[in-house]
């Protein structure tokens, strides 16, 4: 364990002292699973970040990167935590050539701020994660976050074209570039995407952008039975329609959103006005054929608001007491069964599940009561992670395929185990 004061004094030589804190009160907001770091720091530049990590290495300090703090409940409590490195001052738009549809931004930029920046250019980075006002680009990359529109646009994995990181020990390295197609060497972007801050701290990222769609409309289809909703999804999947989101919402999710009914599909189409119209007509007809109890076309304000709220259903920050958020994955065709199993699981444990499923991507987010034996959650099909404040959760699902390789990668990039120690899959 590093002495906070010694570390803070050293850090104040590389970052303006007002951005270095070792006072427990000032550090308290950066606790992770109740563990308060000895120090926090907010470097203002790539070079400062590198200097911070160099000093952290010299002092043997365990480091946790911190963006907007929206996903810090993911993972085990840290094995050690000496220093929280905040990216909030690395939040500039570094380069944006509108006509190239590419952008380079600091990792600390909240995606909501990026959305606002791009709106006047009529461009977008089409990721719609929870809590956009707080969630930063770096945090979204590190946690491989997603949103309902991934059906149409993918995740940041597909949009990331370049990256700058600071490795443990302060080495700066870059991958990719500012072009939309690139095979010049290994794809380092893929390495850091989803690495949960265990290999390096992401300092900046480059993305390809898309023009804002000319039209966008949403259809909310209510069903009496999940079976009917999933049958419709299956039928939709076989058409040549290209909805950009198709979210299954269960009863609790609908209630949270202020709607009644036992389940629904929220379906979005974006693009040319005529193509969007066609989607609405065809999808409404499909819904009717699958005995939808009601089909409602939302106006522009309603739909924008609804999608923000749907995205927030999978936020892992302000979870109601004694609940846990799980992410389950499978194949599109297995999601119906997964959803049924989750409902049954919640009932067995005396509560209700709140579910939103990106069914055509094979992804389910469910908010559940914490079972008396939290490890029981591990039985849920395709569990990837369980996030919450309750102790002893199965934080990560089963050991992933290729785990030995992952351990080797961790040892290569962070040999001293300084970055987020103990938080990721056990053994990393």
């Amino acid at each position, binding site marked *: 364990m590093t002495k906070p004061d010694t570390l803070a004094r050293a850090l104040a030589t590389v970052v303006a002292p007002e951005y270095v804190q070792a006072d427990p009160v000032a550090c308290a907001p950066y606790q992770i699973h109740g563990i308060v770091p000895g120090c926090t720091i907010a470097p203002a530049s790539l070079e400062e970040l590198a200097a911070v990590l160099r000093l952290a290495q010299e002092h043997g300090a365990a480091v946790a990167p911190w963006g907007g703090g929206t996903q810090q409940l993911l993972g085990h409590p840290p094995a050690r935590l000496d220093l929280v490195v905040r990216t909030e001052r690395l939040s500039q738009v570094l380069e944006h050539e509108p006509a190239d549809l590419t952008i380079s931004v600091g990792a600390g930029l909240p995606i909501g701020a990026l959305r606002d920046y791009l709106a006047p250019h009529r461009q977008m980075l089409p990721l719609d994660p929870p809590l956009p006002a707080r969630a930063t680009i770096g945090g979204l990359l590190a946690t491989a976050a997603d949103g309902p529109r991934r059906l149409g646009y993918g995740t940041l994995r597909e949009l990331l074209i370049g990256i700058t990181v600071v490795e443990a020990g302060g080495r700066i390295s870059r991958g990719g570039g500012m072009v*939309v197609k690139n095979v010049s060497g290994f794809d380092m972007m893929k390495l850091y995407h989803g690495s949960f801050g265990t290999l390096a701290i992401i300092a900046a990222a480059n993305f390809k952008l898309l023009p804002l769609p000319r039209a966008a409309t949403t259809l909310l289809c209510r069903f009496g039975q999940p079976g009917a909703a999933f049958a419709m999804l299956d039928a939709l999947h076989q058409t040549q329609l290209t909805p950009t989101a198709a979210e299954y919402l269960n009863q609790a999710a609908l209630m949270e959103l202020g709607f009644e009914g036992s389940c629904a599909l929220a379906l979005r189409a974006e693009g040319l006005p005529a193509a969007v119209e066609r989607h609405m007509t065809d999808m409404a007809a499909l819904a009717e054929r699958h005995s939808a109890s009601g089909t409602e076309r939302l106006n522009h304000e309603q739909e924008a608001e609804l999608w923000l709220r749907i995205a927030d259903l999978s936020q892992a920050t302000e979870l109601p007491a004694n609940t846990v958020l799980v992410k389950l994955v499978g194949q599109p065709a297995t999601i119906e069964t997964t959803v049924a199993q989750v409902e049954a699981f919640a009932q067995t444990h005396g509560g209700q599940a709140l579910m939103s499923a990106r069914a055509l991507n094979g992804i389910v987010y469910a908010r559940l009561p914490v079972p008396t034996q939290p490890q029981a959650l591990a039985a849920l099909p395709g569990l990837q992670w369980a996030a919450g404040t309750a102790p002893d959760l199965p934080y990560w699902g089963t050991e*992933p395929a290729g785990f030995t390789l992952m351990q080797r990668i961790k040892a290569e990039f962070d040999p001293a185990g300084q970055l987020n120690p103990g938080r990721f899959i056990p053994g990393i």
Partner: protein
Amino acid sequence: MDRANLIAELKRVVGARAVVDDAAALMTYEADGCVMDLHAPTLVVLPATTEQVANVVQLAQRARIPIVPRGAGTGLAGGATPMQGGIVIATTRMDQVLEVDARNRRARVQPGVINWELSQYLAPYGYQFVPDPSSQRACTVGGNIANNSGGPHCLKYGTTTDHILALRMVLPDGSVIWTSDGSADRIGYDLQGVLTGSEGMCGVITEAWVRLTRLPEAQRVVLALFPDIPSASQTVSTVVARGFLPAALEMMDQLAIKAVNGMYRLGLPESAGAALLIELDGVSDGLDDLLAEVTGTCRDFGAMEVRPAKTPEEQAQVWAARKNAFGAMGRLSPSYYLVDTVVPRTRLPATLARVGEVSQEFKLPIANVFHAGDGNLHPLILFDRRDKSQLERALLAANAVLRESIEQGGVISGEHGIGVEKRDYMTLLYSTDDLAAMAGLKQCFDPHELFNPGKVFPAGRGCGELAALRRSGLNAADVAGTPAGAWL
């Protein structure tokens, strides 16, 4: 192990007919489509199963013999060239589509499946495997994955990496893994992400779950002819910036038009300085309006003629001309050097202007046939290999094009990879620390560097040395006297 023993052992593993040891036959494997550097392998094996591949790799590992995976050998960067001899593992016999799971939009395939054949196989189901390199009638899915290949339709749908769900790999230690079960967002490091594009340096891909994409309901193809390259390039920028989201946006210059005209009887006016091939797709609703907007944009930027390809046959003919444009170069010159680089799209006019100057400077004709929508250039330097001076000038011209692309904020390969061809240019693009991170990653898979040695990393300082430098904790700045680019 001596050669005779090795041959005997390998024959035991894969069968006598699946080991190539005859000197004349081995010559076929001396290089891929990049014939700058020829090296014969010691032996070639043609395994039929993952187990056989694993056994071959274990054998080679024990004997410390280098291994080079090979698909169809259409690579253009020397990726499949056995630089230090050793065993070439060719996937020719692993050519089965194992499973089509249309409901979940995925298929499980062996690596030796030919890209085109996969698409043909999938079409009746109403699906496609999107990556469509111009070499698709010959190249393999394994090669596409190893090179993260692109193709015209990758503009809208993403390159190979966006279409790979999971890989089965024989790792350099002979063990076999699936990188994932193919569902989205598996936790853990993204192994298939880093393995896609790793150019055969991290193991042999023996199976893959690939993503299937529904064939679009409707397509519109239009060929627009422009007086010159700048007007066509401006059209490209505008079409992209206005959000028309074309499925493909390809350009040919005057020399290329001349070449394909002869072969495909397209009757294109050879006075045209550039042609754009634009494809739009989606549901049919609104597509004709969009087509009208696109053709309008072409006219606004001075298109002399805009020809929509009305029937599927006409569309196929236009596409055939584009995809076989490289082959058509044979009509103009005995050999060509295809340089693959990318620049930001707004830099296309400036870069192409410089390519024109390079052609003048080195007195070699250069044709351009390329993925304009991505900013992915393909200058084809025409020369005669038998003429030593022409060969030298071709190499110098390629060097000038690569440097210009970097100068314009671009990179040195958009889809063909680095291989041997461009390994010494890597230092122009990346710092020592950038390269050392890549080297460290490669060594996690292949610590003894037996897989495809001599590729991607600069010749003067290979992968092992870079990785060691990194582990010693030194930074580039600490290594006095080695400025970036010093190894070129």
